[in-house]
């Protein structure tokens, strides 16, 4: 026993020294070996498009790009470990750059002309460092919105709204329920189990987690309560699948299977479903404009390309990021993978998609209808944590363990905490 005690003491003594990251804060010695590592996760159709862009880049520049694809769930964990071990990749594709902010390379040092001020304004607050450094480039934009089963709408004799004249929430619900009855589907509307998707509804009801500059809690109690109430009522009445939320726990769960199985005529998701459904859906479907309530439009999201201070090939990394986000590259990627562009020039000129062009145009129309506050919220460092808390709170409401009012208060508190944590 004494020996055990002695070893315990030894362990505690050993622990006296501070945990250290192996990389120094100084600038890394640079090498020019014509190679690059690109840490990537794929959404499916973008992989081939990215590979062909890389092949062209290799031919043009002579730089060999090592594409390292990892599953999305493990991306951040892996990147954290690699940064702590001092061997970060040269370039990475991320959805949330905030945990890595202090490690990111200022791209303006290398490619200011090509990258600075070329992308949607809403992203600046998120991608810019305190001294105006460009820490990341928004490489694609996503837009949330409803997808509808056209066959089922036809059978019920319900017409779809025109792209230019979006429906109201009440109209959408009424239409969906009519179609549900006519087709005997299990549900009328399904939404992915995701705080990001619910933010769409919040934004349409006139409020967002965060304020227009993304630095304060922006949730309007009254408007948010109305949205949560509406959501709870739809679930309680069986118009929406409450079980899907409750059974998902705190992990993301898509409702795409319910839509694919034709058990819901309306599915609130986003543009990334377009290429997947083009392949998997065995019925006619279309993208409908987002419903309006107080606001119109959907809710944005997206991915970012970054490089790291640890990188030994900073110039090459920045060059590659500039290439991948040039007008030509982004247009090619968007066309092949049904992505939405982030470049101002491409948004204003528009893109002609090779597949499902009309549907993509609906999403693009909604991008311009989406309020600025939604962009600011989506691009806030506090967004991810608040969205996660929202899923938990909505589950409590659906399980009748909490009232909508309590849920809104809890979401506000979570947003407050997230803002503090990410300061």
């Amino acid at each position: 026993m004494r020996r055990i005690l002695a070893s315990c003491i030894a362990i505690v003594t050993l622990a006296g020294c501070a945990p250290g990251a192996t990389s120094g804060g100084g600038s890394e010695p640079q090498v020019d070996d014509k190679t690059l590592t690109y840490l990537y996760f794929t959404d499916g159709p973008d992989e081939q498009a990215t590979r062909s862009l890389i092949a062209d880049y290799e031919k043009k520049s002579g730089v060999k790009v090592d594409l390292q694809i990892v599953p999305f769930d493990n991306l951040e964990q892996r990147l954290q470990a690699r940064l702590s071990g001092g061997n970060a990749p040269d370039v990475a594709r991320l959805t949330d750059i905030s945990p890595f902010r202090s490690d990111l390379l200022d791209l303006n040092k290398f490619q200011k002309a090509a990258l600075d001020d070329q992308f949607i304004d809403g992203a600046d607050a998120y991608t810019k460092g305190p001294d105006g450094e460009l820490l990341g480039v928004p490489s694609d934009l996503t837009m949330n919105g409803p997808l509808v089963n056209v066959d089922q709408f036809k059978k019920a004799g319900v017409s779809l709204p025109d792209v230019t004249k979006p429906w109201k929430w009440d109209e959408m619900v009424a239409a969906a329920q009519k179609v549900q009855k006519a087709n005997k589907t299990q549900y009328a509307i399904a939404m992915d189990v995701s705080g990001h998707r619910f933010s769409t509804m919040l934004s349409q009801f006139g409020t967002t987690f965060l304020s227009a500059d993304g630095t304060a809690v922006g949730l309007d109690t009254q408007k948010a309560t109305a949205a949560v109430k509406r959501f709870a009522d739809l679930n309680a009445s069986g118009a929406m699948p409450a079980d899907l939320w409750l059974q998902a726990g705190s992990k993301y769960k898509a409702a795409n299977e319910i839509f694919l199985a034709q058990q819901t005529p309306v599915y609130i998701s986003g543009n990334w479903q377009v290429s997947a459904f083009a392949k998997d859906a065995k019925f006619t479907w279309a993208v409908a404009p987002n419903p309006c309530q107080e606001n119109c439009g959907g809710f944005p999201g997206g991915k970012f390309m970054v490089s790291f201070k640890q990188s030994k090939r900073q110039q090459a990394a920045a060059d590659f990021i500039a290439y991948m986000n040039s007008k030509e590259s982004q247009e090619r990627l968007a066309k092949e993978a049904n992505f939405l562009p982030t470049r101002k020039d491409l948004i204003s000129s528009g893109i002609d998609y090779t597949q499902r062009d009309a549907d993509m145009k609906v999403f693009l129309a909604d991008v311009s209808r989406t309020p600025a506050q939604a962009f600011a919220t989506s691009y806030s460092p506090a967004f991810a944590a608040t969205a996660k808390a929202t899923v938990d709170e909505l589950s409590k409401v659906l399980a009748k363990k909490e009232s909508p009012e309590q849920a809104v208060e809890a979401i506000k508190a979570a947003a407050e905490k997230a803002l503090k944590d990410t300061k």
Partner: protein
Amino acid sequence: MSVHPGQARSVQGRIERPRWTSAGGGGVPSVGRVLTYAVLIGLSIVVLAPVVWAVLSSFKTQTELAQRPPAPLPSSLSPANYTEALSSFDFGLYLQNSVIVTVGATLLTVVVNTMCAYGLAKYNFRGRDVLFLIVLGTIMIPLQLIFIPVYQMAAQLGLVNSLWGLIIPPAATPTGVFLLRQYMLGIPDDLIEAARIDGAGEFRIFARIVVPLCGAALAVVTIFSVMWRWNDFLWPLIISQDQAKYTLPVALAQFNSQLSVPFNYILAMSVVSMLPVVVIFLILQRHIVRGIANTGFK
């Protein structure tokens, strides 16, 4: 009480003393036999049905998988999931990496674990109990918890992006040491003492007398090691950074995207990766079933 040497005899002594009055003579009544089969068959169905369903579902398309309620059978036994998943990357290379890692790590595990277990089970030395408690204590640390410090260590030792990094760090499994140590406690000390008197060296005793007696436990540790290393995901994911160093589970998982997971591929590949472990199990399980007759205790 346990199979500790020295006490083995007292067990026997205790058994001899009381005179049991049963007339059975150890025969199994046929009611018991019927019951045994009933229980085993019943449980087998509960255990097997989901596995069979998983295998059948691996032939379904995305659309079929989305069906609600799910159909028990796929519409066709088309191998599309298998061929598409396998052809989308360099299957041969990843298979080769997986085999090298599994075989290498299992050999290393079995050797170092057995030696360590023997040292802990059959010697009385300073620090033995502390070492054993460290072994016990560390079984409970999931990699999830010490992920970053372990990675830093591997990075400092230059094990990143090499298959050695997949073979060496996980080799010293505490579970294996623990299991083998407990098993070795049952080997009588007299056997070892007798060999010493005959002039056998320490390592010779270990290799020629102790190891052959541990067949069943070694088989179990081998099966576990193959299973763990073959299916290992988290560690290879971080150590294998170039795609040329990927193992099968890592290569398969790269399809998992942010917003959708291709369950049809995952099911198919899960079936593929089950097969080698099941084969190893079938081969080795004979050593565990070999029966009471020839374990070598005399």
